[in-house]
């Protein structure tokens, strides 16, 4: 089963990566000649042309493309003009911070949303339910930058409990993870509530009640697992969105993630970095989809891989 899923993953990944690399090449080609920006102001036109020739930019598009693909396949991802080093390490260096923030945000979201959703479903149309709905709307309505700044003011400036910028320790992770996590928690809680209510209305729940087993078992074992698929889907989409970088939160907390790097690369036309970042994000997205498929199968045995 795992092998078949893995086989399908590879079959999926190869064409996707190829198409993405093609799109990246076209984008770079269309942005024009990078040498104009890169040569010193006192360089002559002859100097520039030498650079163009050295980088092969005077070749026709298909030749440039073949060389680009050849380099990619050999693992040569090009030089970062801005950092003056190989582009791949520049991007990979940022990856752990992004992964950490993503994971932290999801843990916060799940820890808040799942219990909240369950309580709202079980106490349907009571003040508890309304309170959860209200909080969900609020969490969506408050912009990230504002929540981040408020958290900084309260926990960093006033209480002096947590560091407010940078990365490096678990304490650094808390505020940005809470900022992002609470933003997702609202939607997730509403989804958990709706799917759980749907599951609780099914025939097999009536069977479970007829068995005389405790209510907690009925909800947590019989209903919640059947309600989990939509929540897993939503969480995986959120993870994919966050892997592309959480620019605003990263900026507010000076978190050294991919988002900041990519935006900076765009400003400086650091094409090699942009290319690598896009390819890395593509690979991560494929991986998350693969893991999501495995989770589906784990939750529901009727789903075949």
């Amino acid at each position, binding site marked *: 089963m795992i092998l078949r899923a893995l086989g399908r993953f590879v079959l999926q990944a190869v064409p996707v990566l190829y198409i993405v690399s093609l799109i990246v090449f076209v984008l770079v080609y269309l942005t024009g000649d990078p040498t104009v920006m890169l040569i010193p102001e006192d360089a002559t036109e002859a100097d520039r042309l030498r650079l163009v020739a050295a980088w092969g930019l005077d070749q026709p598009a298909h030749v440039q493309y073949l060389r680009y693909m050849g380099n990619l396949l050999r693992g040569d991802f090009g030089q970062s003009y801005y950092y003056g080093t190989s582009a791949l390490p520049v991007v990979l260096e940022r990856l752990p911070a992004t992964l950490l923030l993503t994971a932290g945000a999801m843990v916060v979201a799940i820890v808040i949303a799942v219990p909240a959703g369950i309580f709202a479903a079980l106490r349907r149309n009571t003040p508890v339910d309304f309170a959860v709905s209200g909080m969900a709307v609020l969490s969506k309505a408050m912009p990230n930058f504002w929540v981040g700044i408020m958290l900084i003011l309260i926990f960093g400036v006033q209480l002096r409990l947590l560091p407010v910028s940078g990365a490096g320790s678990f304490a650094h992770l808390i505020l940005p993870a809470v900022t992002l996590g609470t933003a997702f928690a609202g939607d997730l809680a509403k989804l958990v509530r709706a799917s759980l209510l749907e599951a609780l209305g099914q025939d097999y729940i009536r069977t479970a009640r007829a068995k*005389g087993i405790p209510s907690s078992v009925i909800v947590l074992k019989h209903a919640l697992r059947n309600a989990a698929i939509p929540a897993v889907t939503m969480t995986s989409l959120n993870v994919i969105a966050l892997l592309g970088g959480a620019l605003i939160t990263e900026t507010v907390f000076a978190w050294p993630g991919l988002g900041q790097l990519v935006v900076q690369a765009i400003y400086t036309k650091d094409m090699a970095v942009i290319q690598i970042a896009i390819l890395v994000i593509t690979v991560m997205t494929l991986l998350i989809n693969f893991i999501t498929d495995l989770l589906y199968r784990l939750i529901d045995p009727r789903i075949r891989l």
Partner: protein
Amino acid sequence: MTGPVLRYRNAGIEIGGRSLVRGVDLEVHRNEIVALVGESGSGKTLTALSTLGLLPPTARFTADEAVLNGHDLRGLRTEGDWRALRGSDVGIVFQEPLSSLNPVLTIGDQIGEVLRYKRGMPRRQRRTEAADLLARMHLARPAELLDEYPHQLSGGMRQRVMLAIAMAGEPSLLVADEPTTALDNSVQAQVLELIVETAEQTGVGVLFITHDLSVVAQVADRVAVMRGGEILESAPVGRLFKAPEDDYTRRLIRLAPKVPAVMRDASLAQPAPPAPKPLLELRGITKRYSAGWRGQGTLALDNVSLMVNEGETLGLVGESGSGKSSLARIVTGLARPDSGTALFDGRDLFASTDNSDLQMVFQDPFSSLNPRMRIGDSIVEPLRARGMRRGALRDRAADLLETVGLRSAMFDRLPHELSGGQRQRVGIARALSVKPRLLICDEPVSALDVSVQADILALLERLRAEFRLTTIFIAHGLDSIYSVSDRVAVMQKGRVVEEGPRDAVFGAPQHDYTRRLLGAILDSDPDNSRFRRREETL
């Protein structure tokens, strides 16, 4: 124990101020099967659910006496109160085994949790006991089944698993709510036998809810007939069938499925009417539904050849998955065959674009009508598509409504305002609107109550003569096939295994599968029960 396991006196159920069940007196003793018979809306299922406290939250249960296994049910209010009784004092088997089992938990888990919470068994013992329960339900390889999921099992196996779950807590009362209605005929007999055997071996009292009097005749010791929330009549099964006191009971008994006499005495067979000429000729129809990439798919129709003569009714029988409906879809052009030819009145059916000569009546009159469309519009929609003008359409709809026994004033009604029988009449009117020559009825009565079934079958019979229709009548119920067909074709796993004049097929079946199907017909005569040996206590 001597007293009854369940005793209701003057029990009533109200929902939202409406009294749905009134004055019900009921007793079930150990090792006794009490059938509660009635049509939809009779209150039989509500009565059954009340013994487990599974009524909807808005329902109010009242009774002068309601005792289950020594516990007074009237004092139970919360889920917690009921939890102590459910599973250990009363178990239940529902109608639809697939949706009643949790799709994401293993069979072993679903049985095991009853053993854990009701009998306090440790984990290892639970596994052996669960396997033992499955074995007692005559399921093969019980130990392996423990790790399987409901979707991997057949319908009959699922219902056996449901029964194992219900019996796992060693209850005194087993409630069986239409336990075989969703199953094929041959499987139905096996499950009924198992329920009877379970009652005899464990001494559990059974409250058996059903609409089918042939099932009652086969399994019950005593019968209570319900209608409109009241028990009309209650008697030992033999007396009820021989000397029914209520008119309604008499009508139900008259309409109940019976084994055709020709099956007992083949010499009673009548010769088939002469066939003038074939109207529809199918040759080598094959259809495979693919299961996606690398999947083998399922062979729904395997080289089917079939002939329908002008003016006759061909009964098409087979169990679920035998390909009956696939064939109907192909003949009406709703699906394309992979190979094969079809001639309709001499011309190539698959090449023609206008198939209005062939119309279909569907099984489920609820879902086959657009809920937002007035029924008059539904009926004449095929005519509008053909460009008939508005005024003419309305007249035609009124005509059609009256033809099928509805008032023309029903034109402006919406489907939800109609009863099941009325909706099926609308479905028939729609099929007739384009004046077809061949009518294909796909299980046209199996979603309806017994007494309504009889009316619809009579209507179809009348229309057949009036419109000189040729009919293909698809059903899994052999008694309705017998009552309407001139010729019968038996399908199994996508093939026609037997075809012939009705009395030849019923009286002298040639194929093993036909014999098995016929053998599964239940007789509405308690003296012919093959499951229950009973001492009649009149």
